[in-house]
């Protein structure tokens, strides 16, 4: 009997992924294609980032993908001097949140921007990134 195929694409997300199976696994394929994608409910047009497979507003699961493009405003950031297990080699690194107006994106600042080069309110863009261990995430860069 053929072995059942398991779609565990999400285990590629981030330095350490804690999730393997999700209905939003296509996010990883889009990331591999160079796109950061959120979801939008086809019924009520609610926009979700991070993407969801179910709309809590109208209870539909009829979603479509939209691409995060342009720049967002830096709302806040912090540089970590200590990290959880598995993140030691990344240290120090900066986590941050961008405001795109109709949704926000939480992620990391690109390694080429130092902590002192950041200012709340500055415009940054979200781009796909391959980590040194081969895993995928996305980072915020200067446009």
């Amino acid at each position, binding site marked *: 009997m053929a072995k059942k195929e398991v779609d565990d694409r*999400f285990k590629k*997300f*981030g*330095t*350490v*992924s*804690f*999730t393997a199976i*999700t209905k939003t696994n296509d996010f990883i394929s889009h990331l591999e294609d160079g796109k950061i994608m959120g979801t939008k409910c086809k019924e009520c047009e609610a926009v979700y*980032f*991070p993407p969801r497979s179910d709309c809590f507003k109208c209870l539909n699961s009829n979603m479509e993908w939209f691409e995060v493009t342009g720049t967002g405003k830096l*709302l*806040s*950031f*912090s*540089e*970590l*001097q*200590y*990290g*959880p*297990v*598995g*993140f030691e080699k*990344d240290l120090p*690194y900066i*986590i*941050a*949140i961008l405001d795109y107006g109709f*949704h*926000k*994106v*939480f*992620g*990391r600042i690109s390694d080429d921007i130092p*902590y002192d080069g950041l*200012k*709340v*309110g500055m415009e940054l863009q979200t781009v796909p990134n391959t980590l040194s261990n081969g*895993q995928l*995430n996305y980072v915020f860069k200067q446009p």
Partner: protein
Amino acid sequence: MGKVGIIGVGQSKFVRGFAGSIRELAFEGFKEALVDAKIQTKDIDASIIASAPEYDKQRSSAGVVAEYLGLIPQPTFYIETVCSSSSTALKVAYSMIKAGLHDVVAIVGFQKMSEISSNESQERMGRGADIQWESPFGTMMPAYYAMYAQAHMAKYGTTGEDLAKIRVKAATYGQINDKAVYRKPVTMDMFTDPKSNMSSPVAKPLRVGDCCANADGSSCVIVASEERAKSLCDKPVWILGIGAASETVNMAGRDLFTGLNVGIEAGRQAYKMAGITSKDIDIAEVHDCFTIAEMMAYENLGFAKTGEGKDLIAGKETYKEGSIPVNVDGGLLSKGHPIGATGGSQIRTIVLQLRGEAGEMQVKDPELGLVHNIGGVGLYGNVTIMGR
């Protein structure tokens, strides 16, 4: 429907590396509350056990703890909202009594942070957020609160010096609280001295000195119906207002980064239920897991206007002699933060203050006290208002 009164409070010493098991730790807080209430175990007709289960090796700890405390065969169950678990349990106990199902309920909160190795602990901390979308970026508790500090600094001009003043206050009272884990003084100079650990960055802009002290500990609050409280206790403290709220786990779902929505909403509900405003509060315990958390609590609870928390601490208004004393037991920063025990310990402090039994930490004649207990990074929030 009658009121609900607190008839007994207790807590263990908060320590590093408690030399005993979780049930033995829970016993210490429970025994003190039982002695304080001058009742016997058989007088308690239900118990609620609160902790954060990821630190426990024991699965479903409620049964094991209740058995050890002699609370079998009365019903027992477990409540968890991370750092606000025991104040959530208080709300549930209040509801059970109000519903007429029970007359006397014990809330036992505990946490043995040292139950697991520091490596295991670090691993669990990595899963403290949304594990699908945020933890893969390497998030940590201090970094999330640091983002709130960064946003508060950018918007209101708050500085590291302002935050350090909150830590200095906490240490002032930690020194006189014999239950506190951190008993040493902290001075403003330490935050500018590169040789002091206090100035060492953890998650910029927060430093070691901005972070609370990990500890093992337990707490217990015993509540009773009005009738039972009056018959069992000379000085019951009444629960006058309870508010609770929740927030998105994911930062991308939030609209406020300079305050905690759960603190604002839970406070609003509690003030409304008690029929009072922030000006009526004589003493407060707020969730100072980080200095910035206390600063935001001043503003979210209405002790200071938004953005003016720094003026409140600069004027020493939250010291014992000030207009609104806050965390005069050392707070989470110095007393320590054993997750599941913290809310109960905050309640205990306010109850002792309202009864005039807080010793060296006693504030002059308070009538109304408030407890603000937050779970996660503003994920859950409970505000409880009590009076004599």
